[in-house]
């Protein structure tokens, strides 16, 4: 179990129809696109897959659909974060039965419990399954409790199937403490870079990456990932700056106070010829003027010219 390494993980978006139902026909195309374009594993539904906007039954159905569609070609990592411990526990159990290769969860949504309760919440989710468990830092600062390196150390002591951390904090200090401290307690303890920033995590000795922008620029993501694997971190700088530029455009688009990038990511998918609809309410899609500006900005990015267009 300790040897499971997910590598370069793509995080697909979740397409919706106009009536807000999950658009499974398009979701199948999204999954096939990722598999054809360098995904060594899929993680779903990550925050960019609008996990918070899906109902419990939909989350289960989505995972069942994805596992069936993937048919064992790559591992599927199931993300099961929720506000309540028992809700997340039950979904983790369901994910294991469904055939997920690993479980991901971050500290609870909404509540701000004491650190010991956060550790308890995560430990119970992990204990409900035999699969490798990855604890994630929350995707943005506000919707729940911060994950600290002290919590990670306590979890390593308590949770035998804790394989690693998915870092969305992007915080150098956290990464240093998790990698050096984590590996002292558990050799081989993994740190996967989250949120499109691969180079710093890899230079510090990180293992893999979960990349939301892979649906837009899979070749660029693959090139940075490969350079990092070859320890050519300095050579990866220019391309990491390109990814950061795209990330910036996506996050700044839309009305989200969290800058969650959900409206931007789906609009950028459409610009690349992969129409996935708009985010579920209450997230607002881009207005007509903003959409025009955003499309122009994305189309003017020279590095996207060589990326695949359409499905």
């Amino acid at each position, binding site marked *: 179990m300790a040897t499971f390494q997910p590598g370069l993980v793509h995080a697909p978006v979740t397409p919706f129809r106009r009536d807000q139902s999950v658009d499974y026909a398009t979701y199948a195309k999204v999954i096939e696109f990722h598999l054809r374009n360098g995904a060594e594993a899929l993680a779903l539904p990550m925050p960019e897959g609008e996990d918070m906007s899906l109902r419990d039954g939909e989350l289960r159905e989505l995972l069942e659909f994805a596992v069936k569609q993937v048919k064992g070609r790559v591992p599927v990592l199931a993300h099961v974060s929720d506000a309540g411990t028992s809700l997340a526990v039950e979904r983790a159990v369901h994910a294991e039965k469904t055939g997920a290769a690993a479980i991901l969860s971050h500290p609870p949504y909404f509540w701000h419990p004491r650190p010991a309760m956060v550790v308890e919440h995560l430990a119970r989710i992990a204990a409900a399954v035999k699969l490798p468990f990855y604890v994630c830092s929350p995707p943005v*600062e506000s919707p729940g409790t911060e994950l600290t390196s002290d919590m990670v150390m306590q979890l390593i002591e308590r949770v035998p199937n804790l394989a690693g951390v998915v870092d969305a*904090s*992007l*915080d*150098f*200090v956290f*990464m*240093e*403490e998790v*990698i*050096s401290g984590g590996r002292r307690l558990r050799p081989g303890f993994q740190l996967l870079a989250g*949120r499109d*920033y691969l*180079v*710093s*995590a890899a*230079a*510090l*000795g990180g293992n893999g990456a979960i990349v939301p922008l892979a649906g837009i620029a899979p070749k660029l993501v693959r090139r940075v990932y490969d350079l990092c694997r070859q*320890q050519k*971190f*300095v050579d*990866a*700088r220019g391309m*990491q*700056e390109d990814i*950061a*530029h795209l*990330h*910036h455009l996506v996050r700044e688009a839309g009305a989200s106070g969290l800058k969650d990038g959900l409206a931007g990511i789906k609009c950028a998918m459409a610009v690349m010829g992969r129409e996935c609809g708009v985010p579920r309410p209450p997230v607002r899609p881009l207005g007509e003027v903003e959409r025009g500006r955003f499309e122009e900005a994305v189309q003017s990015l020279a590095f996207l010219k060589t990326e695949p267009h359409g499905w």
Partner: protein
Amino acid sequence: MLMPIKLKGVMQAPVSPMKDDFSFDGEGFAKMVDFHVRHGAPAIAWPHHKAESLNLTIAERKLGAEIAVKTVAKRVPVSIFVGTLSEEDSLDLARHAQKVGADAILTISPYCRRPAQEEIFDSIVRIATTVELPVLTYNSPWRNGEGVEFTGELTRRLIDRLPNYIGMKDASFHSQKYLEISRVALDMRPGFAIIMGVEHLLASYPLGACGSFSSSGAIAPNLCNKFFAALEAHDWETARECQFKISELWRMFKEQYPSSLKGAMIMMGRPVGPTRSPLPTASKERLEFLRKRLEELDILQTEPHGW
């Protein structure tokens, strides 16, 4: 006109030695500065938070700036930090730094006001145009949008406006925030110096950071120099070892910074005196704990003792 200066490597930011009565120890400070230069510091930067900058009087800051410039005597560049609570003080310190022959100033718009981007822009322009020296700014974003944050857009406007704007001390320690600045600044002004606030260099060096202002150099200058040499050689294995050891040191020192650091310096044979209130001075028990940790980390055995 503008003298070009080269900022690179783990640059040392000396502490401010105090006498037992908490008065500023000018002689001790000269020894401190000289120690750093003799142990390979590629630049001297003073007075950062580590030097209790906000607990010094403006007169003490001017005296220290003069001592620093005189003691370094052009062996390496000297930058003077002019950040204060009041912009009038910053303007005064900036002019003074130029007058006494400093090589650069480091500045931030006044803290504690949660300034808007527009206010930071105006403040930096006022301070930077009052001198002809090269200017560095200090990016200090705190959680929840507090602190003084230089976004990529603000950095772009400042580079556009100020020919003497040469670099950023970045204390975001955050991939996204770092890259927002670096991808804009390094493109507009290729030699722009991005200097990490403390040695989180392994994460940032590959992305174009040129060095750091040091926290641990007062204790472990050899480790700092070895770390940067490993980065320059792309010897990532050695760089990781050094980075993780320096992170351990940082974990020891960051609480009530710089009380523990000053305590640990006593253990290395460089008594720099107490820390001014409201920060505590390291207790006897704390000193013993620090000594033990330094021994476990092999610092006590491998780094210079005394002055």
